[in-house]
């Protein structure tokens, strides 16, 4: 047995809005989009790895998912973290596009991190080497 990680997920409050934010602002590419009941199996991939790990934009329909997201957002805790080449440049670019940050680029030991609002109910960390 040797399992592989091929998909990871974030809960989102609206899949169409999430697809727009994750592709237009964060630069991911659409990968899979299959209707599943009233929702979609909707994934995106990094532009550098179109056959790599997929990020599933998963509906936050379950009440526990909503409660979990709210609690993390209240304390400023990111739902997940993505790598970028340069957090300072990414922050500048995204802020100019109206993306809201709860934490500007800050050195945290071996990395520089920033935390942004994905507008879909999550805070997202971006990180690059210090």
């Amino acid at each position, binding site marked *: 047995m040797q399992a592989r990680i091929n998909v990871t997920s974030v809960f989102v409050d609206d899949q169409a809005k999430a697809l727009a934010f994750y592709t237009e602002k964060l630069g991911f590419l659409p990968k899979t989009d299959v209707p599943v009941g009233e929702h979609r199996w909707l994934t995106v991939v990094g532009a550098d790895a179109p056959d790599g790990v997929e990020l599933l934009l998963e509906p936050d329909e379950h009440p526990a998912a909503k409660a979990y997201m709210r609690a993390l*957002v*209240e*304390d*400023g*805790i990111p739902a997940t973290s993505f790598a970028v080449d340069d957090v300072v440049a990414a922050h500048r670019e995204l802020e100019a596009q109206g993306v*809201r940050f*709860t*934490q500007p680029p800050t050195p*945290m*030991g071996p990395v520089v991190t920033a935390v942004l609002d994905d507008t879909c109910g999550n805070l997202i960390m971006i990180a690059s080497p210090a």
Partner: protein
Amino acid sequence: MVRVGDVFRALADPTRRLILDELTLRDGQTLFEICSRLIAHGNTSTRQAISQHLAVLEEAGLVVSHRSGRTKIHHLNTQPLRSITERWPVTD
């Protein structure tokens, strides 16, 4: 009305003083950022402990918070420190 005793109690703890230091460096932080900065600077307090420290600082009026969207943001408020020098003026 903040009692001066609360201010002294709040300042008596080294981790709470470090939290005030971090807010002096950058005002307006989430719990997550405060925890991350303390860890990056070698403090090993848990999130729960930091949260309780912030509650003590808020009670003493040294930290005030507001909401940005759904996120709680903490700010430094040094006003209560004035009560100390008003009671015991600093002379040169």
